[in-house]
């Protein structure tokens, strides 16, 4: 029997072997792609872990009423003007009475982040009763101490080859021995804006900037995109013009994003005079960028609605507009939303168009409206990656993880929306 098959199909084993080989290649390709992904995200993830904890140093602060509030009025204005930095310095000198000399003292004060004086100022402003008392408070440690505690500074290297001198290492060791150093969850990373000090830098201003830009982008591009798609698909007469428009929309989808940035600079900023560095302009530029994607996706999903629906609606007397808006558009909406979300996810990760309109900037204040200067998540990653301070390395990785998380969430939302609302015919 098999002999007969073999005789009649001489190439069969060879063809089977070819098929097995092909499947093997395919599996190899998928394994490699997954492998790269795992290695990449794994490396970024591992180096980002440090950013989610923060080192703090405890100091007992004596809120000396003579220096803070010499007149004893507890007047908020006087309290705001007081020199809080001296309180923290005095506390450090108390712990390390042996440190003498200007240079060494300066190094000693450098153990604690420069934010300490503002922390104290805020504490006193919130509770003026603190003046005249003594209490132990935790302060954010400087980036060097933080890196040392996290094991990123190798103490076995010769003194000149590392950021911290032997003396500083000794001080940190002493603080650790007395239990005055702790590592806690870094909440401020999620609740504060950018900073030049790695230990204080947070991503909230960038997240808000991205969110506001995307809001503007969605509000502009989604209605315009689906209206254009409905008109082109349902009403526009077919002909040379509609062909031309279709080709141009497809071309626009492939235009490099920096070009949209240049357009934003030339038209939105220079001609219309809109404010620079704001999410309003950023969102408008991103809307231009996502518009073609939304139109193409929306048209595809309109086309996927079976003609029987349209014909049935027309047959029972609905007008063309009623057919389009009451019957076809609702059925196509999940597909349109998916297209919009995928387009917005692309917009979320793009920096090139923002470069031109001034959103690649150092922004500390958290933007509250679309008219306030803001930056975006990928821009924040770029700025941190470019900073000399070593401690920004982990911040960069952490910001990348946050951006990836948002991208995954958006894509997940697209999948879920489609799953929930899609109707198969």
């Amino acid at each position, binding site marked *: 029997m098999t002999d007969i098959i073999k005789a009649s199909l001489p190439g069969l084993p060879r063809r089977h072997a070819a098929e097995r080989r092909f499947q093997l290649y395919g599996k190899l390709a998928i394994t490699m792609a997954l492998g790269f992904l795992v290695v990449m995200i794994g490396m970024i993830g591992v180096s980002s872990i440090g950013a989610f904890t923060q080192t703090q140093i405890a100091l007992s602060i004596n809120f000396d009423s003579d220096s803070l509030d010499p007149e004893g009025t507890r007047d908020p204005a006087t309290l705001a003007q007081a020199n809080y930095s001296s309180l923290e310095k005095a506390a450090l000198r108390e712990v390390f009475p042996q440190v003498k000399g200007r240079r060494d003292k300066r190094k000693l004060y450098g153990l604690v982040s420069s934010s300490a004086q503002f922390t104290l100022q805020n504490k006193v402003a919130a509770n003026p009763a603190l003046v005249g008392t003594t209490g132990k408070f935790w302060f954010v440690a400087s980036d060097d101490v933080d890196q040392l505690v996290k094991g990123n500074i*190798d103490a076995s290297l010769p003194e000149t080859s*590392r*950021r911290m001198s032997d003396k500083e290492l000794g001080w940190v060791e002493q603080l650790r021995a007395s239990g005055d150093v702790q590592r806690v969850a870094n909440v401020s990373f999620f609740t504060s804006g950018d900073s030049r000090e790695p230990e204080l830098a947070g991503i909230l201003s960038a997240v808000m900037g991205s969110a506001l830009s995307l809001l503007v982008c969605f509000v502009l591009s989604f209605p315009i995109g*689906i209206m254009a798609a409905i008109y082109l698909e349902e009403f526009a007469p077919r002909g040379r013009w509609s062909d031309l428009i279709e080709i141009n929309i497809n071309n626009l989808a492939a235009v490099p994003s920096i070009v949209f940035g240049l357009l934003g600079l030339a038209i939105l900023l220079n001609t219309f005079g809109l404010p620079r*560095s704001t999410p309003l302009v950023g969102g408008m530029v991103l809307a231009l960028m996502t518009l073609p994607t939304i139109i193409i996706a929306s048209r595809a999903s309109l086309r996927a609605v079976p003609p029987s629906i349209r014909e049935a609606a027309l047959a029972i007397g609905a007008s063309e507009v009623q057919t*389009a808006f009451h019957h076809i558009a*609702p059925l196509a909406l999940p597909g349109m939303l998916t297209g919009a979300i995928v387009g917005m996810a692309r917009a979320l990760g793009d920096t090139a168009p923002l470069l031109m309109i001034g959103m690649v900037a*150092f922004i*500390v204040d958290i933007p509250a409206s679309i008219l306030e200067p803001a930056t975006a998540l990928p821009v924040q990653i770029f700025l941190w990656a*470019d900073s000399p301070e070593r401690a920004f390395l982990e911040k960069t990785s952490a910001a990348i993880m946050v951006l990836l998380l948002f991208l995954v969430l958006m894509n997940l939302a697209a999948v879920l929306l489609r799953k929930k609302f899609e109707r198969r015919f």
Partner: protein
Amino acid sequence: MNGILKLSPLLAASALVLAAVSTPAHARDQISIVGSSTVFPFATTVAERFGKSTKFKTPVVESTGSGGGLKLFCSGSGDKHPDITNASRRIKKSEVEKCAANGIKDIVEVKIGYDGIVLANSKKTAPVKLTLKDVFLALAKDVPAADGKTQPNPYKTWRQVNASLPDVKIEVLGPPPTSGTRDAFVELAMEGGCKTFKWIKAMKKTEKKAYKALCHTIREDGAFIEAGENDNLIVRKLEANPKAFGIFGFSFLDQNADVVQGAMVNGKEPSFENISNGAYPVSRALYFYVKKDQLRKVPGIENYLAEFTSDRAWGEEGYLTEKGLIPMSVSERKDWASKVKSLQNLSM
């Protein structure tokens, strides 16, 4: 299943956005700063402190490069244009003229300190001692041959350039031409080495163009690798490739002293002291420029200037030195601080 009803909130929202666009923008109450990526870390540090310690908003600082910043700065006066631009070189005459043509006549110049450019390699190999002449011969496109002519750069290894240097391939990672660091490197190191040839130096007066072409052109045969504007990347690459050298700002050497070391240039180590007293040959001054007109319009500029020119910021022990700024001498600082205080106009 009413599609129109579903879409109407979106349409209303977009109408709101458009309405927001058409209302006139209110006057700016936040200082806008653009300019050099080298000055960026210093300007942002001051801006942040300024925002935290005063009632004013934190200034917005953009990193656009020196040339890009001056272009924006000079493109017009008023709220739509930046108030301050940072520069890692001095403003050019042509730029001052462009500013004047756009109605910006009163500019205050502030020199903030110095920055060194280093040639560094991995700590895994021995440190080297270079001269500017070595740097020029290793990196120029054309080098002098015998009898006053030039030839395309024939050197493949450092030993061929100078017998006292190691026998390794010339491989230098540096910034692209858009970078201010590259401009400064070319002007200070390349031209400095170029000038050591007497006949080339003589050329400067007679044939300026040819002189510039010879001294300022970096070789393109693969020995010099443009590594982008990200200096951290260059440091990582040097770590991986101990044979290569990298060109970047002093602050990156300072932060990465455990993995890279700076080469001695003309017998001087790139150290804080050597750059600040001018002994290290590859260092440049950093500036920023302020529009006088905006001082009255945008609140806080004067306070920002005061913060920047205070000793706790730009002094020897100031917080900017922590970020890698090399301070000016006491007398120079005093001189500039008084110029800034009296808002003296820029004079070229």
